[in-house]
C-alpha cells in the first residue's frame, strides 16, 4: 500500500469531523420542537394570550438553536479554514 500524504489525511478527517459536528443539530431540533409544542398547549388553554406566547416561544426557540449553531460554526471552520493543516506543517518542520 502506498503511503498517504499527511495533509490529505488531515483534510479527509476534517471532513468527517465536520459531519460529526453537525450531530449537534439533533439537540436544537428537539429543543425547538418541545418549545413549539408547549406554546401550542399554552395557546390552546388561553387563546387570548396568543401574541405573548408567540414572541416568548420565538425567543426561546432562538436560544435553543444556539448549541446547533455552535456545531455548525465548528463544521464550517473544519471545512473551509483547515486549522489543523498549519499545526501539522509546523509539526513536521
Amino acid at each position, binding site marked *: 500500500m502506498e503511503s498517504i500524504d499527511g495533509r490529505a489525511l488531515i483534510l479527509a478527517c476534517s471532513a468527517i469531523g465536520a459531519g460529526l459536528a453537525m450531530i449537534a443539530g439533533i439537540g436544537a431540533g428537539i429543543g425547538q420542537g418541545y418549545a413549539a409544542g408547549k406554546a401550542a398547549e399554552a395557546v390552546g388553554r388561553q387563546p387570548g394570550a396568543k401574541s405573548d406566547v408567540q414572541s416568548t416561544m*420565538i*425567543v426561546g426557540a*432562538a*436560544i435553543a*438553536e*444556539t448549541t446547533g*449553531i*455552535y456545531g*455548525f*460554526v465548528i463544521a*464550517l471552520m473544519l471545512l*473551509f479554514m483547515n486549522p489543523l493543516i498549519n499545526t501539522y506543517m509546523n509539526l513536521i518542520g
Partner: protein
Amino acid sequence: MTDFTIEELFVINIGDIEWMIGSTHFSVLMISLFLIGFSIYVNRRFKRFQEVPTGLQNFVEMVIELFDKFAVTTMGQQGKKFASYFLTLFVFLIISNLSGLVLLRPPTADYAVPLGLAIISFFMFQYYGIKAKGVGGYLKGLTEPIVFLTPINVIGELANPVSLSFRLFGNIIGGTVLLSLYYSTPWFMNIGIPGFLHFYFDIFAGLLQAFVFTILSMVLLTGAME
C-alpha cells in the same frame, strides 16, 4: 470552491502593517452611509415638522413610539433610557441581514461584526451592573449562591457575548453558504427556487435573529442591573 468567502478588495499599507480592506468593510460602509443619509434627510425634513404628522413623519414617529413602548415592556421604566441605542442596533442589524438581497455580502456573515456588537453589549452589562449595584454588590453577585461557584459564574458571564455573537453569525453565514452552494447548480435549477431560499434565510431568519439579538441584549442588561 464556492465564492462566499470575504473578498479582498485592496490592501492599505500603514507603516509595515498590511490592512486588508474586504467586502465586509464595503458593506458596512454602504449600510452606514444609507442610515446616516436617511437620518440626515429625516432631520432636515422635520425642521418644520407639523403638529399633525403625515407620510414619512408619521412612519418615523410610529417606529420610535412602538420601540419605546417595547423597550418599556421589556426592561421596565429604565427602558426609555436605552431605547435609542437598542433601536440603532436593531435597525443596523435588520439592514445588515437584508443586504444579502441586494447582492452585498451581509456584514454579519463576517465574525468581526457580531463579535464587535456583542462586546459592546457585554461592556454595557458590566458597566451598568456596577453602576446599579455598586462595586461591592457587583462582586457579591458573582459569588452567588455560594463562594465555591464563582468561577462558573465568571465563565457564564463571559459566555453571554460568545453565544449572542455566534447565534447571529451562524444563522447569517449558514444562509450565505447554502445560497452560494445552491447558485452553483445548473441554470435550470436557479429559476424561482432561490426566491424561497432567500425569503427564508435572508428575510425570515435575518429579521428573527436581529430581533433576538436585540431582545436578548435587553433581557441580559435588565438582569445585570437588578
